[in-house]
Structures are given as C-alpha cells and as structure tokens.
C-alpha cells in the first residue's frame, strides 16, 4: 500500500531538510513542471486525477482552478492561499503534514501556484501551530536559498513568493473568504459568493484557496500521473486520505489510507477498537461540524459520496467517537459552545441562534430543561440550515445538533424527566 503523503514522515523525528527532501525525490515535480509543462498541463493533470478538496467540502480542486482567469489579460497579481488553519475540533491531519514534511506542502504550493499563474502564495496557519510555523519558516527560507522561490525560478520566467501568515486564532479564519479578509487585515467575516475567490479574492484579485492536504497531493500527481492517483483509492474518488480518530478508542491517531476505507476498518484496525469497558454509541465522521453516525453505519466507506449518502459528511475525515459512558447532551453542548464562541457575529441566526442553543442545552444538561426546549432546539437546528446563514459555520454547527436530536432524543428527554444528567448524577 502506497502512502505518498506520509512517506517522508517519521514520528518523533525532525522533518527532512531541503537536501534530504531533494535526495528523496523532492522538488522533482517542480523541476519537471517548470521545465516541461505549461500551467494548463499541471492543472489538467490535477483535473484528471479528480483530486477532491480535503478541507471539508470535497470540491474538485482542478475544477476550482479552472475558474481562474488565465493568460496575459488576467488581472494581476493572482494569489494562492493555502488553508492551514485547521481549527475544526477533532482534526489534526494538516498538522501532521506540516510538522512532518513541510517541504511537501511548499512543493505542492509552488506547483498549484504555477498552475494558476499565481504571483504570491500565502500559507494561513493556525495560531497554535507553533512547531509547524517554525518548521515552515525554516523550510521556506531554504527553498528561497536554493532558488526554487523568488524571481524567475530556475530560469523558467515564472516568479513566486510565499508568505507564512499566522492566524489571529479564530475558527472563522479558516472559512475561505473569512481567511481572505483576515489576510487583508480585516475582520474575518465571510464574503458573499458570487463573486467567488477564483475571480475576485484577495484584494479583489483572482485567488485560489486550498487545504494543506489537498495541496500536498499535487507533487505526487505531477510526478506519477492521474491514473496512478486514482489507483490509490478504494473507490472512484482518487488518492489516499489522512484519516484520524479521537475519543475512547485504544490508539487514537492519524493514518494515511486509501480513500474509501470503511469506518469499521478505521476504528477496529487502525484505532485499535474501543477501550475496555466502553461501547461505541456514535461518531462524528469528519470533525465537529458533521452529522452523527451510529454503529449501524460502520460499513460506510469513508469517501465524500458514501458518507453523504449515509446522511453525514466526510468533512476532514477525522473521526470523533462518542462512547456509552459519556453524555451525548454534554458532548453536543460542548460542541455548540465552541461554535457559538467562534461565530463571527455577522449573521443573526448564527450568533443569536447558537447563543440560544447553548443556553437551552446548558439548561437541559443541568437538569433544568423543559420538554418544549427539545422541540425548540430541533427548530433551531432547522433554521440554521444551509442557505439560511451567510456562511457554512452555522449549518456546520446545526449538523451535530440535529443528528443528536435524531439519534439520542431519549437521552435529551431523560435529562428533562430526571431533572439531572443521567451520566453525571449529583
């Protein structure tokens, strides 16, 4: 089984420096592309590979790039923004990639930028990722030094600068247009779409936003081709995926596996199954903002299409496990507290609805809830649905709430009837 994304990563070791990285075949894809491929050919390779965005929405990366105006009339400068904000609770896959092999990300960024003829690339990094920041900064300096960044890279006529931008530290900064505002030094409110960033992004110029993991796939696609990439996967969605699991499993962690690995395999084999004395009650398949699935869903293949068919989303592909000895209401309250805290404050359903939801959940969890509060929560979850708010934060927040009410409703009702949390008796 090939693991291209993590081949260079050795747990507990410093990442490869530029020389070691090059010795292992690193930056070969950049040399190949700049010497012998046009930007359109790079973009086409990614398009053929069917690389789906790994930031959560699964949008086809090559397709996204194809909306960028190209050629000499295109507005300049153009930008690539690498989304390394990774603040989704339960998600730590990009961290692994950046701390473990920073050059892979930089190589991917150079290639992606080349494909859209970007002049400048930003890596927008989560505030708390200090180690990644240090390693990326060091790596970028090394790449400049070796002449693979800056003016007229290896005489190709192509120039690119990469800046590392460390976030102010808010979940909303990871939403792609919120991120653009944050880079511009504005409040991280989202922007209205259309226009999409591909035509009007940073400072009103064409901009592509991609997730770290998405970008990290690009060098391998350029080196090995689309058919190879598609072969890596168990399903028709190409490539490998970095999956992860947290919660009361025996060995929580992150693993690179073929796209479409089943939930069962992930939990039982890679995460080592549930800890002794704990039973699986439910799970969030792809981070905090995805719908709960239950043990009945363990056969679901973890790719975008299959998880959606099962009623949730692949999201970031990092599973959060709910066990039978933890209170589902408490878990949902914890999640909603996060979303309410991180709401950017732009649209009322989100800042108001989530404050309301947290209040109701707090009361229920404390045994002070009323039956009608559960209906109220249900209608709130519905009202925060897609299209009702300005960006996807609120719909994301509604997903675990709505699905918890669907799968664990009796647990909510027990809190009301017993006037206390059954898991946490006084």
């Amino acid at each position: 089984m090939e693991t291209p994304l993590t081949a260079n990563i050795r747990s507990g070791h410093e990442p490869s420096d530029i020389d070691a990285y090059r010795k292992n075949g690193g930056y070969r894809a950049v040399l190949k592309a700049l010497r012998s491929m046009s930007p359109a050919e790079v973009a086409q390779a990614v398009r053929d590979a069917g690389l789906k965005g790994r930031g959560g929405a699964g949008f086809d990366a090559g397709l996204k790039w194809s909306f960028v105006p190209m050629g000499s009339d295109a507005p300049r400068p153009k930008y690539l923004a690498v989304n390394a904000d990774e603040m989704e609770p339960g998600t730590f896959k990009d961290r692994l990639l950046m701390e473990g092999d920073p050059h892979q990300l930089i190589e991917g960024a150079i290639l992606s930028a080349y494909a859209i003829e970007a002049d400048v690339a930003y890596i927008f990094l989560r505030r708390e990722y200090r180690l990644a920041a240090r390693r990326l900064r060091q790596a970028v300096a090394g790449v400049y030094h070796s002449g693979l960044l800056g003016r007229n890279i290896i005489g190709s006529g192509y120039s690119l600068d990469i800046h590392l931008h460390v976030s102010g530290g808010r979940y909303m900064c990871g939403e792609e247009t919120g991120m653009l505002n944050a880079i511009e030094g504005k409040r991280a409110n989202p922007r209205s779409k259309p226009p999409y960033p591909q035509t009007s992004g940073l400072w009103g110029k064409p901009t592509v936003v991609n997730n770290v993991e998405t970008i990290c796939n690009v060098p391998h696609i350029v080196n090995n081709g689309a058919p190879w990439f598609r072969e890596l996967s168990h399903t028709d969605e190409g490539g490998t995926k970095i999956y992860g699991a947290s919660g009361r499993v025996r060995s929580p962690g992150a693993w690179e596996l073929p796209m479409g690995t089943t939930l069962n395999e992930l939990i039982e084999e890679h995460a080592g199954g549930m800890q002794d004395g704990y039973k699986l009650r439910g799970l969030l398949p792809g981070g905090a903002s995805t719908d709960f699935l239950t043990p009945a869903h363990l056969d679901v293949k973890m790719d975008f299409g299959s998880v959606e068919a099962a009623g949730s989303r692949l999201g970031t592909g990092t599973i959060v496990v709910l066990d039978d000895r933890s209170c589902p209401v408490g878990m949902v309250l914890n999640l909603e507290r996060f979303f309410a805290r991180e709401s950017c404050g732009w649209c009322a359903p989100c800042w108001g609805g989530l404050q309301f939801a947290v209040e109701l959940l707090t009361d229920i969890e404390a045994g002070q809830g009323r039956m009608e509060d559960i209906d109220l929560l249900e209608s709130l979850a519905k009202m925060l649905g897609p299209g009702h708010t300005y960006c996807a934060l609120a719909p994301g927040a509604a997903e675990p709430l709505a699905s918890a009410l669907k799968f664990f409703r009796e647990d909510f009702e027990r809190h009301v009837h017993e006037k206390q949390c059954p898991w946490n008796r006084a």
Partner: protein
Amino acid sequence: MVQIFVENKPYEVKPDQNLLDACLSLGFDLPYFCWHPALHSVGACRQCAVKQFRDENDTSGRIVMACMTPAANGVRISIDDREARAFRAGVIEWLMLNHPHDCPVCDEGGECHLQDMTVMTGHSRRRYRGAKRTFINQDLGPFVNHEMSRCIQCYRCVRFYGDYAGGGDLAAFSLRSQVYFGRHQSGVLESPFSGNLAEICPTGVFTDKSLKRHYARKWDLETAPSVCVHCALGCNTIPGARYGSLRRISNRFNGAVNGYFLCDRGRYGYEFVNSPRRLRQPLLRKGRSGPAAPVSATAALRRLREIISDSRVAGIGSPRASLEANFALRRLVGPAMFASGMSEGDWRLAQKTSRILKEGPARSVSLDEVRRADAVLVLGEDVTNFAPMLDLALRQSVRQMPVRETSGAIPPWDDKAMREAVQQRRGPLFIATPAPTSLDAIATTAWRAAPDEIARLGFMVASLLDKSAPAPAGLGSRERSIATAIAAALGEAERPLVIAGTGLGSEAVLEAAANVAWTLSAGGRTAGLCLTLPEANSMGAALMEGGPISRAVEAIESGSADTVVILENDLCRRAAPSLVENLFEKARHVIVIDSLINPTVARAGVALPAATFAESDGTFVSSEGRAQRYFKVMPPSGEVMESWRWLAAMGPAADAWRMVGEVAKDLENDLPVFSGISAAVYGAGFRISGQKIARQPRGYSGRTAMSADIGVAERQPPVDDDSPLSFSMEGFQGEPPPPLIPRYWAPGWNSVQALNKFQEEVGGPLRGGNPGRRLIEPAPGRPEQPPAPQPPFFNLPPAPFSPPAGRWLLAPLYHTFGSEELSILSPGIRQLAPAAYLALSQKDADDLGIGAGGIAELETATGFLRLPVRLAETLPSGVAGVPVCLEGLEGIVSPGEYVRIRAASRK
C-alpha cells in the same frame, strides 16, 4: 421592466434591483435591518427572508434573503409563506435575546425600527431564559449618545460611518453575540457626519445627544419641513419643537440634495434658536448714545413709523435672511437704496458666481449630481469645512468609476461584494488647495499652492482641453504634468465636475473653474460646475439686484440717506471696522432686525427681535440655484416677529402683505429671475380633504396640561396664516405633497424608515418629485461669437504668485465647527470649535523664528493681532492661514489681504 410573482400575483418591477427593493417599492411590508436604501445589501441580519419557488409547480421552495436575491424576470416568491414567516420570527427572537427591552427609558422609543419590525414580525413572548450580554458605553462627544446593550448587530453604523462617510474611528470589535460597535476608546467621533448614526441605527444604541438634554418623544414633537441655515447647500431638514423650544433637527429626504443625510453642523447647529442670546423684545435707545430699553412691539412700531416717514432710508439686507425678508426691505427702501448685505469682496465673488452659472454652458449641479460625477477637480475649496455635505457627496463620486467597471460581475446593490471587489480603487479626484483637506486621503492628487497658483493650474487644464482657452505663462513642469493628468481624466469622464467657490476669496479661481467646466461642455456633454457660497441665501442675495454693504454706507455718507435698516446682519463680521464705524457715526437712525444679540444689534438705535428659521416661513436659494421654502415649526413667541412682518409693518403700506406668499408673489413680479418660487410650494389656502396638514402627530400629548398653570380650559391652537400647515394635531396626517411633508410616519412604520412609504420607489425621489425649484439653468451652449462683454473664456490667467518681501498672503481656513455664525451658539458645536490660531509653513515659521505654539503678531490693514502658531506642513511659503470667524477673529481677516508677521515679543 421585468415581471416577478409575489404570492402568485404578477408585478412589473425595474430590473437591476434586489427583491427587497422591489417588494418595498411595491408597498409590501417586509421587515429588514441591515439593508438601507443608501447603503444597500449585505445580508447580515437575515430578517428579510422570503420563500422562493423554482416555478409554479414548486410547492416546497427555499428560504432566500430578499435583499441578496436579484429581482430577475420570472422570480416567484412568497412573503406570507409559513416557513418564511417562522424564520423571520426566529430572527427577531435572536436579535432580541440580549436586548434590554428598556423602551420606556430609551430615546429611540416611539420612532424605533426595532419596535416596528418586532411588531410586524409578531414576536411577543420571550423564550430565552439565559443571561443577556451587556456592555460598557463610551462617551462619543457632544453629538451622539451610546447605549451598546441595545445593539442588534446589524452593522449599519460602521457601514455608514466607515464605508460610506469615510470615518476611521468607529469599528466593530469582538465577535459572536458580543460585537461591540464603538471607538477604540471613549472620545469625540471624528467624522463631521456622525449625527447620522442616530438615524442610521435602527435601535437606541446611537441617539441624538442634543435631544437628550431636552428630550421629547417623536409623537410629542411638532415638526415642519425646513431648510438648513448653516451653509449654502440647502439641505432639507425636519426641525422638531415642543413647548416653544427647538429640540432637534432630523433629516428631510430630498433626492436631489442631501438624500438621507445631514452634516453635524446642520444637525446640531439649531440650538442658537434656544440661545440666551436671543433678542426677545424690541429695544429702543434714548438719544444717540443713551441706554437701550425694552419696549413693546406696538411702541416700537409707533416709533419706527415716525422715523421712517420722515427719513431717507437705506437698507442692508442679508445672505442669511430669506428672499422674502430681503425683498420686503428692498420694497421699503427702494431698489436704489438696497444693499445685499455682503462685503465688497463677497459681493463681487457672488456676482461672478451667479453670472458664470447663468451665462455659461456648464450646469450648476445638485448634490445628487455630485454624488454621481465620475471625475472631479476641486479648485481651492476645503469643502469639508465650508460646505460639509459636499464632502460626503464626493466620497460617493470617487466610487463611480470602479463600481461601473465592476458592476458587470457584481450587482451594484450587493454592497459587501462590491466593496470587496473594488477595494481601494477610486475614480479621479484632484484637489488643489492652500492647506490640507480631509478629502486629500481619497484624492488622486492633492496639490498645495497659493490661490493664484491654483487658478493658474485651472487655466492650464482648460487650455489643454481646448486650445482656444488662454494658458498661463511660465507654469512649472510639475504643475504642467498635474494639469495634463487632470485634463486627461476630466476629458475621458462621462460626468466630469469642477468644484470651486468663494471660500478662498479669489475671483481668478472662479474664472479658472469656469474655463475648465466650459471647455468640458462641448460635443453634447454638459460638464458640472459646483460653486460654493458661504450662507444659506447667498445665492438668493446675489440674484437680487443690490450691491455691497458699502453702497448703503455711501448713501449715508453722501447724504442721500440718513437712516439705515439692517436686516439679520452683523456688519461687524463682514465689513471693515472703519466702514461700520462710519455708518453708526453718520446715520441719524440705525434700525436693526435680528434674532440674536450681536455687536451690531448692541449698537442699534432700534433693535427688533426677528424670528429664526424655526419661527418663520421663507425661501432660500441654495448655491445650486435651487429655491426652497421652509416653514415655521413653532409660532414666534412674545414680541418676536418674522423680519418681513417687521418690515411690512414699519413701512407705509402697513397692511399690504398678510402672508409670506404675497411677498413671494410680489418678488416674482418685480424680479423675474425668481419667477417660479411660489409655484414650487403650496399656498396658504391649500387643503387636503378640506384639512390643513398637521404639524403635530396624532399622539401629541399634554396639549391642555402644558398650560395648566395658566388655566385648564383648552386653548385655541395658534393660527398659521402663512402656510397650509396647522399648529395642531387636528388636520391631515397622511402623505402631503413633498414640499409639505412635516415628518415621516406611516401605519406600522414609526421610525425614519417610514420614508420608504413616501417615495416613488425606495431610494428614489419622493412621490411628486424632489422639492425645490431650480432658478439657474446653463446657457444653451458657449456661443462661437459671444456678445460682448462676455468672452468665450476668461482671458486673464493670473501671474505667478510672488508675495511682496516680508508679507504674507492671508488664506482663509474654515472649520466645520466654529466658522459659521449661528451654529457656534450650540453648546456642542462650541465645544468642538478650535481656538483662534495662525497657520504657517515650517519654513516660514523657521524664518520668522517662531516654533509651534509660539505667538505671532500680525499687522493687518485694520490693526494688530496676536495669535498662537500652528505648523501646516504643506502650506505654500508666503501664505499664512487664518481661521475664518473663529471666536475673536470675526470680521478681522479679509481673504486676499497681505499682512506683515513677526514673532511676538515675550510679554
């Protein structure tokens, strides 16, 4: 037009708008918060949700935000849909989670959009049991009160203040349900448009602090249509009064003029009406120099008729008095004896201004045309301080070009997307002034020069655009390249505009501006020309044949007159002290009519208390040339009378005029330039359904109680003979014709947003047209062989500026707060007015050996003056800036004068 379906019924609506625009224009009650007709859509509040259906077979539909959805052909929506209604109720519930529900103690109560929308949406029961978030408020200065806990996070305040008005010190802080709208710390709001926050904010967060000091609810305010008296732009206002005192000014929409906004001078200057310096009783002086004693109006008039009947009378009118008052004076003294009330210099400038606009091919533009101009040259004027709303208009005009370039991809009403796409791109705005202006920050080029050099630049631009226009000799290469850039930008524009004015006191600058605008008015294009003037009726006074003050003084000196009547004019502010001295020395009788006790009133033989704008009716002609009628808000009290009534009463034909409309009619007959001013308003006999229009709202309270100390019988409301408005709540309460709208109110719409119901379409003109009658239209074209003496262009560019050795040219500097005569009596405005100073360039100050804060001694034509020095980095050498009419400087500085300056000896 496109067809949309609302509740399955077809409607024709204009394309290129969103569904909220369309629905409101159709008269539907659809609630909203973050949208504003001047600020457009951002989709933040989600209050305007409706259900959209794919086609007639789609029964499920989906929720969309009306303000973010184009009104495209065939769109089908339902406002009434259950889910949409429930969603809107949900939004209000969320907005109200943290709201303190303190309406009884909230200044917004009774005119609160949040109250209206809450009622409209049907949210009446609180389900949220948690704690509310609360905030600490800030002291934002004398104009705007801050009560943040009432905020619903609609973002209108920061969008108006920052995005629309260019203010940099109000922002949104923090996030989630805790967004704080304020300054980084307590402090006076810097924008001269801050008062609009009180109307923009749909809740009681930002309210009018001046109103707070003498508070009355909207339903307790008597209101009438009025016009601002604090500069020449003629912004439309709605003053509100109660118990005989003026409580506030709010905006009166005029799509061609001020639109939705006012400047802070216009909004907060009103308190001079309540000032303790009001003259409330006639004063009669014993002999020439005896004490002045109060007398009754009857006694004063008896004495006046005696004086008038056996004197030869000259009259000095006023650019701050109405046309009617000026005309009544002109009638009283005869045309030959009537002076306009302007200084020599102001008169010349005003004459030149009106002639350029009347006789040339460029169009005197409205403020709305300024907002829509796409390339602008400002020659000499510091518009922010001289005519503030022009600043706000220019901040919109610089967006024209980039928005036009972007609007293919993004609908212009999607304000958020548009601003993010446009970013900092701005259309051409060139500014040439002696001292820095606050518009410099958005200018393509801001150039500092002496007035003559500014004129030369203008002449150069004109000559580049049209070879037959004269070019100045010996222009420097930097000036040449600036002129080239200006000529290119204006030449390419669709709606080029030149702004100049009388502020600098330079005729050459006016001529240069005319030349530029005239060269641009060719080939089917009419360029805009905006020439600013200082006072509310400066243009009216310029159009009324008369002369400078000196005309009356000469009449007295020559003996052709022995008595002078001075109308609403503090001569000490306008004429040289020697001239004033002469007048008071030589005249047998000096009769002064004014509303405030000023140095001229103080020396009068007879002083008569005049009504202010708030207690009188009249017509002002704005600098655009727009004649606008204002109506009294409250009757004059006690012995106070309208100036024209005093004048009519003291004259021989004491009973000729009974109402102000008759004065206006006679004015039109005598001076055809004013014809049409009455047609634009409705006569005193106008009635709707047999009723007068009520100045008081239906809910006006305490009518009997307010005079209970005198008697409990309900008194007859005062009668208003002058207009079709009544001093009462009896009368018509609906929608009158635009010039007569006393307030905006409609059932269910108690806030200013009721204005939507008075417009042809939201954001569009009032139903029935924008008030006012333009008296000046451009000449059809610049004739090839113009009749003498008017040349096709002004032909004499000034020589390069070179001050005589050891002398400085005095350049007048204006202050929004402080330079204007009446508003300075408002406590808030006084608080913000700077103290007198002298501005010098660093180099000149060094040469003189004066540091910042040092004292300079000026030797002017009229005497010596000591002023602290402020350094103005970019002031041209040889030019000294002196603030106009700040306290202590009234009448001292005449623009264009050369003075000696030295470091004051330390004493």
